[in-house]
């Protein structure tokens, strides 16, 4: 990072500025308390609580079927993966035998959700650094996925497709055909993304060497998902603790070592390719069978503690349940990826310009309701 030497006759003064809770770059109601010297960031303090809905407390009141619906509202861009996390925890605690068909469909929808989330991220990333066309490209392709989701389960964003024990409905007869169409379509569109933004000289100048996070810091701050992997920290839950049908597919974990904004960008682009390959491996052989195993109407988990982690589009989502044997958990804790990824913002943004902060924040891919539950 370049340093500015100030003539001693001029006194430079740090000042404080409020970025958010209503600010276009914070993607929601995140409030950043910035201490700035001219254009240079001296301190970033995230201030949370503007969209806190006590989801964890509400979980202590609700039955396990109801909890699934609340998780949509955390990281709404990977809604289906959040649902899956709770369902997997409950199913593992009950030691239910889940049909292969369910596992495969869950994985396919999960990966499609990841692509859809990364599409939106890519569009918004471009907008944060000032390129407006990316937004339309990203949303154009995401729209096709939303249509597939809508046909499958009736909802486009908060899907509620998973229930403890399987899926709420079987897939729509068109599902396989449309997913294949999407994959063929998206294979021609993803190189377009590269041509528009990845190879743009201005974008590279804005991104390379900005917001560098070392591997050690990534581990000590608990970074996960693309943020951790861009720093060379192999933390893909899908690879290390495979769940659903992920043990049946082969894919590469997108890893880079630079740890800067550009690396985080490239990791997400590569993840879209990997997700497509996972979907391609599974889509042709969805096993026949039941789409759901029947559970008791009132699910009571045996007394004990249960933990399950999944890889959402943002990183590692952990669900920790303490049950006392009643119909609702005694305590339910979500380990959300956004929260730990946000905590390292101050570490990597200090010393950069305001523009760097915005670009860095865009590659952390924060979803504020996920941070503020």
């Amino acid at each position, binding site marked *: 990072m*370049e340093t500015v030497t100030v003539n001693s006759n001029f006194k430079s003064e740090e*000042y404080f*500025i409020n970025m958010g809770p209503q*600010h*276009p*770059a914070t993607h929601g109601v995140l409030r950043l308390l910035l201490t700035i010297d001219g*254009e240079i960031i001296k301190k970033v303090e995230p201030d949370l609580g503007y969209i806190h809905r006590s989801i964890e407390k509400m979980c202590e009141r609700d039955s396990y079927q109801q909890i699934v619906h609340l998780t949509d509202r955390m990281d709404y861009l990977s809604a289906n993966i959040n649902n899956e996390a709770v369902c997997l925890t409950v199913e593992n605690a009950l030691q239910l035998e889940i049909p292969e068909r369910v596992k495969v469909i869950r994985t396919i929808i999960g990966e499609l959700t990841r692509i859809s989330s990364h599409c939106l991220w890519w569009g918004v990333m*471009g*907008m*944060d*650094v*000032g*390129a*407006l*066309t990316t937004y339309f490209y990203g949303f154009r392709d995401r729209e096709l996925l939303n249509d597939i989701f809508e046909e499958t389960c009736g909802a486009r964003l908060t899907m509620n497709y998973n229930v403890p024990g399987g899926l709420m409905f079987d897939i729509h007869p068109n599902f396989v055909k449309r997913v294949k169409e999407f994959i063929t379509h998206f294979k021609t569109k993803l190189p377009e993304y590269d041509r*528009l*933004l990845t190879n*743009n000289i*201005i*974008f590279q*100048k*804005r991104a390379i060497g900005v917001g560098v996070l070392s591997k050690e810091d990534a581990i000590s701050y608990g970074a996960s998902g693309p943020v951790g992997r861009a720093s060379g920290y192999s933390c893909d839950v899908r690879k290390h603790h495979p769940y659903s049908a992920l043990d049946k597919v082969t894919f590469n974990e997108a890893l880079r070592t630079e740890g800067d904004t550009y690396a985080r960008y490239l990791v997400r682009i590569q993840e879209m390719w990997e997700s497509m390959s996972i979907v391609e491996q599974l889509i042709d052989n969805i096993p026949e069978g039941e789409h759901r195993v029947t559970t008791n109407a009132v699910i009571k988990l045996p007394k004990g503690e249960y933990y399950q982690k999944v890889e959402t589009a943002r990183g590692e989502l952990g669900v920790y349940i303490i049950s006392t044997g009643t119909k609702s958990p005694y305590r339910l804790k979500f380990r959300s990826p956004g929260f730990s990824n946000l905590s390292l913002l101050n570490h990597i943004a200090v010393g950069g*310009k*305001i*523009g*760097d902060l*915005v670009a860095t924040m865009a590659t952390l891919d924060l979803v504020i309701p996920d941070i503020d539950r």
Partner: protein
Amino acid sequence: MNSALSITKNIHDWLFSIMPEAAASIAEMVLIALVYDAIKLLSKELTGTTRADKFLYNLAPYFVIISSLMALSVFPFTKEFQAFDINIGLFFLIAVSSIGVIGILLGGWSSNNKFAMIGAMRSGVQTISYELSIGLSLLTMVLLTGSLQLSEIVEVQKSGWLIVQGHIPAIIAFMIYMIAGTAETNRAPFDMVEAESELGAGFHTEYSGMKFAYFFLAEFINMFIIAAIATTVFFGAWLSPFGITESIPMLGVFWFLLKALILVFLMMWFRWTFPRLRIDQLLTLEWKYLLPLNLANIVIMALLVWLNLTISF
């Protein structure tokens, strides 16, 4: 609201009476959006901060809009259709168009808003830097014409547009001019002044209604001015290509606007495609690359004129 609806109805009837249905419905959407935009800007409440420096805060939009409108007065749309043909036309244009930055600085400063102030300071830094490149790239072309008077500049181009006459250095000067011009009008990829993802709305954060509209319209007029200067200096103003419509002088307006609007389209294309530069990269580009290149380019152009290596038909 009633007037808005009746305007809408009139536009609708008129368009469908003169055009095929499909074209009319598209034209209707465009026109009605324009009308509604104008009505919205005119009828919105003028909010402002109580802590603002009221006098400067109210004065700032006029600086911006007046400087933009003044610049329009000297363009040669055709040989006759030119309001003022002063002998320092080009100098006048550069001088007048740089008054606008005073309005931006005043607006940002007097709003008493930190985001607005950051925007205004950026604007000052940026406009002053890029003014150099604009001036120098136009000076390069003045070497060819030997005059600052716009009608004379057009007269010279009757034996070939200046971008052809001056060939390589002229093309370099044109590219520098377009980059600097985009920066001068604070359009992306150089819209550091607004930088909506960084500063919210930059220097006009605290403005609303018609006061905001002055800034907003001035930006678009400035874009046209930059394109019109380029048209006049590089592309032969109202001269038609190869003199195809020389016998109908009034078509000059058409050619002038066509050329200028193509350049406006180019600038809009930049805006939607390129990411924004960072403020230090913006200054690096100007002071380390464009300015030295420009100075060298002037020397090359001078040599070219001296050795009589220009192309003319």
